[in-house]
């Protein structure tokens, strides 16, 4: 069970592009929803990937939609968040409309460095802390953030501190402080890392863990190692079959066997690479690690995300990762 992780309300999911970060964020959201938590998956730099993976229609920027029981997806967008925020601090609709229509405003939003990032993080803070209109309690039990790819994530998470330091006094500094307090609170927040066990993603994960947890002091959660290969056969066994297949007749059988051998090499090659980088990861990033086996599948959709969700829950429950099918 991932219940220990779900004790934190805000789960940020970071990782290099192409490692399956969105998939893991979706799987976590499904698990949280299944555990009965009112869950929102916030997609930053909204590309609509999360909604698609959960089998939902695209979600307009700045809006949220229910995609399953207990589960909403929110497409976070800096510009939309800024408008929402200004709506809260300038309660004059006519004036606001004039501001939003003005060229200088749009220019400012487009160019002010870090403004969109700041607003995005601000919006996430707002969702994590906001009250439910009807009950007065919290609106969400779990806010899961599918953060943008590596370098950009660091920029986002760094922004409240940067803003706070830059604007010594004033509204931004006060608001930034509240956001920083939430991000740095280990009882409310956990930063989770997704990687594959390969050279480049592992290098980036080590670097990012250093930047986010050591330098920025953000509280770490889990390390999810995605697409791990485990060969169920030894090199010697592969070689034996390769040698035994040399004289096979007819030729077609020989060709099929060569392909069996080639794929065995591919699997054991990646299994070896994965094992090596898993060792390196666990040495450098001392976090509870959950391995997600590589999913051999023709297509990747909702069903596969559910399988991964089950694998996460299973792996978190077991002390050792399982082999074979998730």
């Amino acid at each position, binding site marked *: 069970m991932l219940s220990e992780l779900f004790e934190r309300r805000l789960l940020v999911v970071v990782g290099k592009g192409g490692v399956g970060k*969105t998939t893991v964020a979706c799987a976590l959201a499904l698990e949280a929803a299944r555990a009965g938590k009112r869950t929102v998956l916030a997609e930053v730099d909204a590309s609509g990937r999360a909604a698609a993976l959960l089998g939902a229609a695209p979600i307009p920027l700045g809006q949220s939609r229910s995609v399953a029981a207990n589960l909403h997806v929110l497409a976070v967008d800096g510009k939309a968040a800024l408008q929402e925020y200004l709506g809260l601090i300038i309660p004059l609709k006519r*004036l606001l409309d004039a501001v939003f229509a003005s060229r200088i405003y749009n220019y400012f939003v487009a160019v002010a460095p870090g403004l969109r990032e700041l607003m995005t993080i601000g919006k996430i803070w707002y969702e994590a802390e906001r009250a439910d209109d009807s009950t007065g309690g919290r609106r969400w039990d779990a806010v899961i953030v599918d953060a943008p790819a590596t370098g950009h994530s660091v920029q986002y998470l760094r922004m409240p501190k940067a803003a706070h330091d830059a604007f010594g006094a004033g509204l931004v500094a006060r608001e930034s402080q509240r956001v920083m307090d939430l991000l740095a609170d280990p009882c409310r927040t956990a930063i989770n890392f997704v990687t594959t066990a390969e050279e480049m*993603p592992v290098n980036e994960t080590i670097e990012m863990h250093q930047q986010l947890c050591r330098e920025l002091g953000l509280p770490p959660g889990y390390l999810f190692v995605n697409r791990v290969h485990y060969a169920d056969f030894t090199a010697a066994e592969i070689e034996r079959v390769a040698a035994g297949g040399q004289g096979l007749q007819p030729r*077609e059988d020989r060709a099929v066997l060569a392909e069996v051998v080639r794929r065995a090499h591919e699997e054991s090659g990646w299994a070896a690479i994965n094992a090596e980088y898993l060792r390196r990861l666990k040495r450098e990033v001392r976090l509870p690690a959950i391995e997600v086996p590589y999913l*051999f599948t023709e297509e990747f959709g909702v069903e596969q995300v559910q399988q991964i969700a089950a694998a996460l829950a299973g792996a978190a429950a077991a002390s050792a990762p399982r082999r074979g099918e998730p």
Partner: protein
Amino acid sequence: MKTLDRIIQQHRVIICAGSGGVGKTSTAAAVALYAAERGARAMVLTIDPARRLADALGLRQMGGEECIVPVSGSGTLSALMLDQKGAWDALVERHAPSPAVRDRILANRFYQHLSQSFAGSQEYMAIEQLCELYECGRYDLIVVDTPPTQHALDFLEAPQRIADFLDKNVVKWFVRPYFSAGWATFRLVNRTAGVLFRKLEEATGVAALAEVSDFFTSMAGLFENFEARVRRVYELLRARQTAFVLVVSPEEQVLREAEHFCRMVRELRVALRAVVFNRVHTEHSGARGVLERERLEALVTRAGGGAATAALVENFLRFEAVARGDMARIAAFRRRLRKAVAVAEVPNFDADLHDVAGLQRMHRYLFGAAA
């Protein structure tokens, strides 16, 4: 249909585009290596802060310094890593009217922040660097690895974004000494903006706004140059000597993004000459009947599989499922590609490609019989 081999012979600039994590850097390095091994003076330019190319070529240190990678054959392979921060500074140094202005810009906090985090600045500086390398004329082929963004399009839109940022009509709002009478008048005359600026002042404190204003005032002299540069940059991207190569992996999401890229490429009038599919699993083309589990197991047993037989067959069939998906997605994608676009499929090897020998393994698949 042209091959990738012909394309690198006929162009002087190859831009490898694609979303992050698809093997763009390896592809760019493999293309440059191939050209170098065949006698070209080749250069590969990478922008990746993760030093991916440094890993791929076994280089340790490439901070803005050109590296020579040893290759067999008569050509040369140079590699360059773009130091983004340094590149912005270099640009300011080159265009500042005086040392005093230069120092003022470099010391400006707004500038420091901007040069590190302005969306598109990485991409823009890559193109800047490309222009410079192109103009120096020391290379027959320059291969550019683009930043690992989620959206391949960022690279194409970056110059325009920078141009918009330096839009003279808007900049003039900011180009006025903050504490002069001009500012107060401006606030009175322009009520909407006035309210907004008052809010901004409340929010940020006057110092931050003054910093912004000062930045634009100092930069005012550089703008004329920028517009001309951005125009020139687009000229190079659209030039006959420039070819775009889109690198993808056969995953649903990546291909969807790639389709969007293909559409935009036409709108931006740049030439997409090739698509490289990386990490592809190919379906086994053997007779269907052989691929039933029982028959496969009998076959592997005959070859001496012993206790490992079931696991080896299971592994084969699992990969076959992945391969069916890959093949179907690639076929669907290729149907929508223009006929003139070259296509290469590189398999998912059994190892990471991080050295010259590894990159050479890609050549046969990238360049076909020519390699």
